[in-house]
C-alpha cells in the first residue's frame, strides 16, 4: 500500500471517490447543486462541523468520546457574545475568554476521565446536559446579538480576492515542493517511489483541484473565512498528530494502552490534554457558530457532537481507537454537508434526510469493518 506522508490510504481514496460520486449524482439531478453559490455554502457549512471533527478524531483515537461538544459550542459562543455585546469587552478579550472557557471545560472533563477514571461517555454526557443548561442560563433564555465586527466576519465574511489568489499560489507551490521533497526523501531511504512522470501528474492533478476549487469559490464570493480558519486549524492539528511526540503518544495509547504505559508514556496526562484540545476547538466552533447566525442562541450547537462523530467515522476513524486521520474527518464533514445540501435541493422530506444521514454513517462503518476483516485474513 503506497502511502504519501499525508495519510492517503485506500480508505481515504474510497471516501474521496464516494464524495465525487455524490457530487456527480446531485450535480446531474439538481442543477442548483452545481452552482458556485452552492459549493460556497457547502464549504462554509462544513467548516463548523469539521472544526469539531478534527478534535474528535484525537478523542476517539485515544479510546474515548466527547458528547458534550455541541453544548460547549453553545456555551462558549454565548460567553463570548455576552462579554462583547453586554459587558463591553473588546472583541479580542471576549474571544480569548471564550477560548479559555472551552479549554477549561476540556481540562475538567479530561481530568475526570483520565485521572478519576470515570468513563468519558458518562462525563461528557453529563457535560452535554450541564452546559446546555448553562448556556440557557447565561443567556437568560433569549438570543443575544453579536455586534458587527471582525468576530462576525469569522462566520460570514470571505477572504478578499487578492488574499485568495495569494493563498492559492502558496498552496500550489507547497504542493509542488512537498511532492518533490517527499519523493527525494523517500528515494534516499530506499522506498519505492512513483516514477517522475507519475509524480508530475500527481502534482498537476492536486494543483488543478486546488485551483479549480478556488476558481469556483471565487466566482461566487470567494473563500469563506470560516473555511480558512478550518484550514489552518486542520493543518495545525494534523501537524500535531504527524510530527509531535504528543500525537504519537495519543495514537499509541489508542493502539495499545498497556504497551503505551509500559513504554513510558504518561497516559493520563495525554488523555486530559486531548480533551483540552477538544475544548479549545469547540470554543472556536462556538464563536464561529455565533458569528454565522449573528447571535448567541440557547440552541446553538445542538446535535453537533453527533455530526462531528459521524464525520470522523465516515472519514475512517475507528471506534476501537488507535486509527484515524485529520484529513479523513474533514472529507467526512464535507461529505455530510454535501449530502445535506443535495437532499435540500432535491426537496427530500426532513425525515428522509435524517434517515439518509444515518444510513450513510452505518454504511461507512460497515465498509470499514469489512475492509478490516479482509486485512486480517
Amino acid at each position, binding site marked *: 500500500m503506497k*502511502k504519501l*506522508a499525508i495519510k492517503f490510504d485506500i480508505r481515504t481514496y474510497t471516501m474521496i471517490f464516494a464524495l465525487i460520486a455524490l457530487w456527480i449524482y446531485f450535480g446531474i439531478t439538481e442543477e442548483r447543486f452545481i452552482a458556485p453559490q452552492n459549493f460556497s455554502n457547502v464549504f462554509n457549512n462544513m467548516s463548523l462541523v469539521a472544526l469539531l471533527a478534527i478534535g474528535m478524531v484525537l478523542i476517539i483515537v485515544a479510546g474515548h468520546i466527547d458528547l458534550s461538544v455541541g453544548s460547549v459550542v453553545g456555551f462558549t459562543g454565548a460567553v463570548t457574545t455576552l462579554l462583547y455585546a453586554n459587558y463591553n469587552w473588546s472583541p479580542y478579550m471576549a474571544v480569548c475568554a471564550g477560548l479559555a472557557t472551552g479549554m477549561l471545560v476540556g481540562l475538567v472533563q479530561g481530568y475526570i476521565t483520565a485521572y478519576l477514571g470515570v468513563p468519558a461517555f458518562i462525563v461528557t454526557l453529563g457535560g452535554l446536559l450541564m452546559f446546555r443548561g448553562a448556556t440557557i442560563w447565561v443567556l437568560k433564555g433569549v438570543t443575544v446579538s453579536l455586534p458587527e465586527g471582525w468576530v462576525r466576519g469569522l462566520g460570514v465574511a470571505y477572504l478578499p480576492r487578492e488574499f485568495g489568489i495569494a493563498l492559492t499560489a502558496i498552496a500550489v507551490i507547497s504542493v509542488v515542493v512537498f511532492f518533490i521533497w517527499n519523493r527525494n*526523501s523517500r528515494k534516499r*531511504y*530506499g*522506498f519505492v517511489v512513483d516514477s517522475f512522470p507519475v509524480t508530475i501528474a500527481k502534482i498537476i492533478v492536486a494543483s488543478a483541484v486546488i485551483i479549480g476549487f478556488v476558481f469556483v469559490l471565487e466566482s461566487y464570493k470567494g473563500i469563506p473565512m470560516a473555511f480558512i480558519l478550518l484550514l489552518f486549524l486542520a493543518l495545525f492539528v494534523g*501537524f500535531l498528530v504527524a*510530527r*509531535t*511526540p504528543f500525537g*504519537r*503518544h495519543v*495514537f*499509541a495509547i489508542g*493502539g*495499545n494502552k*498497556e*504497551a*503505551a*504505559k*509500559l*513504554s*513510558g*508514556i*504518561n497516559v493520563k496526562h495525554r488523555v486530559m490534554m486531548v480533551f483540552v484540545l477538544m475544548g479549545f476547538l469547540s470554543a472556536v466552533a462556538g464563536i464561529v457558530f455565533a458569528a454565522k447566525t449573528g447571535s448567541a442562541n440557547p440552541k446553538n450547537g445542538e446535535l453537533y457532537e453527533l455530526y462531528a462523530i459521524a464525520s470522523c467515522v465516515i472519514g475512517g476513524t475507528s471506534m476501537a481507537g*488507535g*486509527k484515524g486521520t485529520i484529513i479523513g474527518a474533514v472529507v467526512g464533514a464535507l461529505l455530510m454537508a454535501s449530502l445535506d445540501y443535495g437532499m435540500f435541493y432535491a426537496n427530500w422530506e426532513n425525515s428522509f434526510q435524517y434517515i439518509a444521514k444515518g444510513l450513510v454513517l452505518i454504511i461507512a462503518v460497515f465498509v470499514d469493518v469489512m475492509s478490516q476483516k479482509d486485512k486480517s485474513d
Partner: protein
Amino acid sequence: MREDMSGEIVIKMQNIVKEFPGVRALDDVTFDVRKGEIHALCGENGAGKSTLIKILSGLYPYGTYEGSIEVHGQSAKFKGIRDSESEGIGVIYQELSLVPEMSVGENVFLGREPRKFGMVDWEKMMFNTRKVLDELGLNINPRSRIKYLGIGKQQLVEIAKALSLNSNILILDEPTAALTETDVELLMGILKKLKERGVSCIYISHKLDELFQIADRITVLRDGKTIKTHEVNDVDKHTLISEMVGRELTEMFPKVRVEPGEVVFEVKNISAYNPDVEGRKLVDDVSFKVRAGEVLGISGLMGAGRTELLNVIFGAHNGRTEGEIFLNGSKIKNRSPRDAIEAGFGLISEDRKKYGLVLIQSVSKNITLSALKRVVARFFINLNKEHRYSENMVQDLNIKTPNLEVEVNTLSGGNQQKVVIAKSLMTQPKVLFLDEPTRGIDVGAKTEIYQIINKLVAEGVGVIMVSSELPEILGMSDRVMVMREGVKAAEMDIGEATQEKIMYAATGGQ
C-alpha cells in the same frame, strides 16, 4: 473406605501429538485415568500439561491433534467443549468462569436454568443447587452472590457446577494456587469424598507435597513427553524432580562471560500486595544485587511472583508496594514506567503483543516510542533522524522486515520481540529486565537474542532475565535466583546450579 475400582479405565489417551508452528507441544503422550482415582499430572511450565487438558476437554478439537482418546471405553472425537461435557468431563480452570454479580445457583445452572412455563423456575434452581452443595458437604447459601464468597468457596462452587453437569471426570488445573490453607484442606476433603463416589480426577499441580497427600498416581511430563507414571507409594519427591528436569543439556548457549564490575543495581525488601485481595502478598521481602556485566537469571514456577517483582521495580505494579531500589548507589523511586525508563531501566514484558507493541503501527514507530525525545528537534519529530535510528536498530539487531513502514504485526514472533528490545535499547538502559525473552520464538531468533544479551553485558549493562526454561537459565546466567510463592527461595552462582537444585527450590524441596 475405598471401593476396589482399580482396573476400570475411564480415560485413555494414546500417542497424542500436538504441534504448533515451530514447536511440538506434545510428543507421543500416553496417559490413562482409572475410575475413582486421583491422578496427578506434574511438570515444569511449558511441559505440556495445559495442552493435554485442552485436548481432552475438546478445546482443541478432534483433527487438530494426532493420537487417540477413549472415554469410558468409547472412542472420543470431541468437536468442542460441549462434547466433552456430555461425556462427563468437567474442567476447573485456574481462572474461574463464574459471573461475580450472579448468585451461586444462577452460576451453577448458567445456560440451563430449569424452566416452568417458559420462565425460570427459581425455586427448583435453588433447590437443586442446595442438593449439589449438600452432597459435597458445603455450607454455602445458593442465593449468595459469587463476588461475596472467598476464592476458595468460589472454586468449590465451580466443582459443584461441574458435578451438577453429571461430570464423573474432573480436571483441576493448579487448584490450590490461590487458596488459603483452610481452603486447601476443605478441597482435599471434598476430593476424597468424590473419590468414594467414583468420580475420577486429574489433578495438575507443581506443589509436590500436596500430590503426595491426595494422589493415587503421578505422571511426570517434560518437554511434551510422558516420562513416567508412578503409583504414589512407589516414588519420592527427589525422583519426581529429577524426572521433571532430567533432560540432557545438549544445547550450546553462546554465553560470553564478562568480568563483572561494581554493583550497578540493588533491591532491598521488595514486597508487592495483591491489588484485589486485601493483605495478600504477591512478592514477599525479596532482596538481591546485580553487578555491571552480570546476568541474573530468575527462575521459579508460575505464581512464584517473578513478573510481579519486575513490575514493582519498573513502577508498573497496581497494588501497594514496599522496599527500596538503588541504581549505582542512589535510591530510586519508580512511581511509573516513565520514571523507571528515565532512571535507566528497561523492561521487556512477558507478553509482547499485549504489553510490548502497538501492533497496528509501523516498525519504526514502535522502535522509537520510548525515546521520542532523541529524535525531536524543537518540538517536532525529525523524520529523518527517526528513520536513521530505526534503521540502525534494525541492522544491529538483525530484525527481518521488508521495510520500516510495515505494521509490526506482520513480523514473526522473534522479530517482534527484537522490536520490543530495540525500543528499550533506544533508551540506553543501565539495567535491563527480560521476562521470558525467548518464549514462542524460533531457534534462530533465540540465538540472536542471546547474542544481544551478550553485547549488552559486554557494555556493562546489568541484565535480569526471568525464564521458565531451565536450560536457558543455566546457559545464560552468571547467577541464579529462585522464587517460590513470592519469596526468594534460593540464590546460587552458576557454578553450583543444576536443574534439580533449581526445581527443588522452586517446588519447596530441601
